[in-house]
């Protein structure tokens, strides 16, 4: 059976231990620390060949600046000292996770150097070790294979890209990561999300993983029949996984369509050469052209015979132009123009005609142009042309960066296989069978077991419990629901308030464990009423303290006397209405009362009070 799509994922989870190869804290910081600058250079392999991905990065000729904040980076991160032994706690955690995934663990773990020369690793390689293979994870009765579990170091954090200089901060470099790769066993975008969630709960159950945005990242490998393996690298929002997959399916099928069209037309590979048409466009009013020429730049152009309509079709389905532009951008330009989108961007119909005439183009022919500094515009246009030629073959294998809107952009070719060699500075680690037996008999609570226990211990329903565990709120839930009376509020908070706040655009990262715990303990001690909890959390997400939130929301809880005075005043203001409706006025007045009392006293208490005071009023 042919599946409409085949997907495998790699999940990268940061561990909450020391760094993998030194004793630095694993923590991201605001300080920049001292700086140093380096260049990386692709190394020559035995065969005199340099890896294609390494080459693509080298072509950008980037220089790197590194920020080395104190406490979270040392000589090891600066590539000025050899790595220390691998962190024992991190190794123990990855062995635990491997066991939970029923994977078979290496007898001896060997660290490797994986060449990466985008500057994100000061050494020019990432240290990584294969720890286990051949595991499984089950979702919805489906058995998804786990190909490998690796322990590796996280890369440095990119903080700025300016012109040709990239700045990285070393705080993230060396944080241990567990990498779990599934087999390409998934064919439904929603299943993929569930597998990711499931792996997330298993990882969290070790209690040794970091929480929060950026601490877990997914690489999604997607292919459709007739397409090719494309890797969307570093997706952070699990909720978007199905969208990334659907968009990639669409992108690949449109590329297959473009290939069919081009082949039908008998299109041939275009000549990868750029023609200088700066003179032709010297009086153009287009901002991009004017800006490039005024800075001494050039406009380069190239014909694309028989490509008309594939760069951007009228229905916007075919968008080879966008693909070409992404390749051009990876060479440092802002973009390219192509004939399917012109006249536009200040380039007039006359100018388009001039170019077509200059290049002697027919109706079915297209062209692309790029304006910038000559040493940038030319390689960029050539890269775009090379991408156009790949369209004749079909879908190119590549790595893409995920965007927050669920689409992705070209980042680089898929890395080749031969980019690893042994990390001779780190000793191999022998994994004794006795150690594995101890781990197996002390496994952390599995997600199912935890679901059942939460139902039993806290009296929440099973669906709530499953959702808490799946979305990773189980730990914090247990902490704030220590007082069992809080269980229902806590479950409601994490399962409905949080999604609502997120929808409103609140930054849930601001709601760290400590602040949330503070909010619940304030609630428990009667500082405000449970109705006010969502508003309090909204303030906390903006960065305010619990006290600050309570006072700015005017929530300071009031005593019975004060509440009575407020209610009585309200009844007196509406004396006619109350006299007319009698006890029937309780309902309509409840809303008015709550406007005054919300968050200051409990809702049920407010209703009782109102009823009592109306009774008293009517009696009087």
């Amino acid at each position, binding site marked *: 059976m042919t599946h409409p799509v085949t997907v495998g994922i790699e999940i990268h989870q940061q561990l909450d231990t020391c760094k993998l190869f030194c004793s630095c804290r694993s923590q991201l910081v605001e300080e920049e620390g001292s700086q140093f600058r380096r260049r990386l250079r692709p190394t020559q392999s035995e065969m005199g060949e340099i890896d294609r991905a390494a080459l693509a990065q080298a072509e950008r000729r980037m220089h790197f600046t590194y920020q080395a904040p104190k406490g979270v980076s040392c000589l090891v991160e600066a590539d000025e000292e050899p790595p220390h032994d691998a962190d024992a706690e991190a190794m123990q955690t990855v062995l635990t996770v491997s066991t939970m995934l029923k994977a078979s663990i290496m007898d001896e773990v*060997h660290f490797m150097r994986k060449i990466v020369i985008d500057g994100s690793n000061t050494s020019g390689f990432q240290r990584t070790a294969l720890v286990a293979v051949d595991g499984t994870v089950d979702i919805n009765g489906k058995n998804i294979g786990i190909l490998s579990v690796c322990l590796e170091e996280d890369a440095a954090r990119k903080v700025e890209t300016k012109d040709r200089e990239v700045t990285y901060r070393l705080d993230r470099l060396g944080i241990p990561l567990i990498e779990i790769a599934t087999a390409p066993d998934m064919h439904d975008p929603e299943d993929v999300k569930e597998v990711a969630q499931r792996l997330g709960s298993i990882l969290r159950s070790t209690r040794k993983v970091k929480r929060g945005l950026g601490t877990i990242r997914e690489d999604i490998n997607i292919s459709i029949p007739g397409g090719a393996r494309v890797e969307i690298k570093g997706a952070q929002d699990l909720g978007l996984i199905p969208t990334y997959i659907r968009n990639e399916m669409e992108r690949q099928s449109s590329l297959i369509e473009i290939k069919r069209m081009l082949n039908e037309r008998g299109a041939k590979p275009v000549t990868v050469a750029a023609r200088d048409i700066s003179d032709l466009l010297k009086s153009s009013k287009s901002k991009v052209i004017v800006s490039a020429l005024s800075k001494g730049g050039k406009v380069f152009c190239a014909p694309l015979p028989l490509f008309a309509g594939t760069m951007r079709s009228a229905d916007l389905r075919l968008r080879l132009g966008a693909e070409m532009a992404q390749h051009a951008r990876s060479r440092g330009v802002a973009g390219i123009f192509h004939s399917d989108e012109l006249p536009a961007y200040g380039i007039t119909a006359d100018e388009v005609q001039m170019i077509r005439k200059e290049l002697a183009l027919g109706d079915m022919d297209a062209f692309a142009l790029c304006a910038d500094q000559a040493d940038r515009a030319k390689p960029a246009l050539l890269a775009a042309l090379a991408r156009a030629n790949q369209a004749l073959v079909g879908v190119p294998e590549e790595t893409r960066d995920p965007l927050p809107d669920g689409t992705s952009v070209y980042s680089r070719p898929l890395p080749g296989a031969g980019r690893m060699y042994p990390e001779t500075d780190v000793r191999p680690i022998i994994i004794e069978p006795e150690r594995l037996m101890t781990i197996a008999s002390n496994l952390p609570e599995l997600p199912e077991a935890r679901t059942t226990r939460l139902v039993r211990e806290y009296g929440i329903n099973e669906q709530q419990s499953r959702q808490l565990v799946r979305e990773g709120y189980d730990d914090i839930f247990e902490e704030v629901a220590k007082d069992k009376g809080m269980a229902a509020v806590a479950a409601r908070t994490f399962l409905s308030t949080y999604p609502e706040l997120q929808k409103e655009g609140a930054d849930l990262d601001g709601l760290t464990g400590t602040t949330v715990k503070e909010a619940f303990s304030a609630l428990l001690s009667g500082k405000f009423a449970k109705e006010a909890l969502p508003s309090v959390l909204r303030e906390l997400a903006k960065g305010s303290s619990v006290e600050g939130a309570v006072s700015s929301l005017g929530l300071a809880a009031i005593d019975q006397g004060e509440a009575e005075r407020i209610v009585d005043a309200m009844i007196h203001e509406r004396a006619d209405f109350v006299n007319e409706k009698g006890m029937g006025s309780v309902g309509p007045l409840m809303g008015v009362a709550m406007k005054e009392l919300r968050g200051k006293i409990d809702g049920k208490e407010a209703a009782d009070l109102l009823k009592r005071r109306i009774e008293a009023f009517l009696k009087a």
Partner: protein
Amino acid sequence: MSYSERARQLLASSQAREGDTVRLKVRGKEHEGILMPHHEFSHPDVIVIKLKSGYNMGLKVDEGSELTLESRAQERTKKAKDAVNGNDLPTVSFLGTGGTIASYVDYRTGAVHPALKAEELVATVPELSEICRMRSHVVFSIFSENMTPQNWQTLASAVADELNDGAEGVIVPHGTDTLGFTSAALSFMLGDVPRSVLLVGAQRSSDRPSSDSYINLLSSARFCVNANAAEVFALMHGESSDSYVHIHRGTKVRKMHTSRRDAFQSVNCAPVARLGMQGELEILSECKPKSRTKVVPDTRMEKDVALLYFYPGMSTEIVKKVMEDHKGLIMAGTGLGHVSRDMVHVLKDVISEGKPVVMTSQCLGGRVNLNVYDTGRDLLSAGVIPGEDMLPETALIKLMWVLGRTQDMPEVEKEMLTDRRAEISRRRDL
């Protein structure tokens, strides 16, 4: 650790060699990959194979394990690139000593091979051929910690031959551990050189993209060609950043850090020059200009000279024992150049047997002065030669070289106190 008998037999019976593709069956599971070399710290029963994914996997073999040879490693034919050399460029000689300052990585097996021939150097650092014509010659191939005075002699003769043959400069890629010793030895043995001799190393091996070797090598060639300087120098990174290199005097340079790129520093003087990444040259202290004279090396050395590091409570027996079969002694004393009172007496005895003792300081920075304290004065009275601001290692090499030419005590003392190769500076700015 090497392989256990079981692993060895399994390998022997399969006839598999490192680099071959094998199939290894362990506890019912089969794995295919390339057979890798045994790691020194691996378990004796562990066989390491490299999977298609590139990862290495260590598998412990037992009685039931099977190893079969799938296919032999393919002989790789190296594309020999020509050392493209512009005819009008000056010739620079590269003399290999065994450091892997330039190397190839075999990603299949992880093996790192040094680039020793000129054409291999061009392949790893192609930019070299835009600076100079290259001539290369492997003098020996050893780890720098295994160097001996004999190696220095061989190297000095080889360098002299290259210079006398008209080379515009000689570059000696060298392991960093003892680079400072070799640069001092060459400084004394070669005497006045007509063009520069540069020892160059790398603190990060050249198989890494972050290696400092490429910039250091390139800068060496630039310095040889563009700087009007003719001495023995060491060239290494000037700071942690890839921003500039420092050129140090061969007698004044010392490795001051185990691992940093800027480990090498000039002690008791400023570096001779600084060279930026694009070749911007800044001369920081005067040096001898180039000439067309010939080198007349004097490589005679007395190898039986010891260097001892004094510490509180150090047994005098150590010195007595050592001096039974050594002909000269360098002491690295404390502070201004001191040792314990007992030790002063022993040193006096050593000197009275006609064996010179030179005092240097373990402070490294600064000059010894034996006039300030009683102990110092006693040392002077005992006949100890104050080593001025020489590095202990430089003093060692110098005494070897001096004793190679004379045993006459007053002559030795005079020589040790005379500045020959900028090893002694007379004044030092604040």
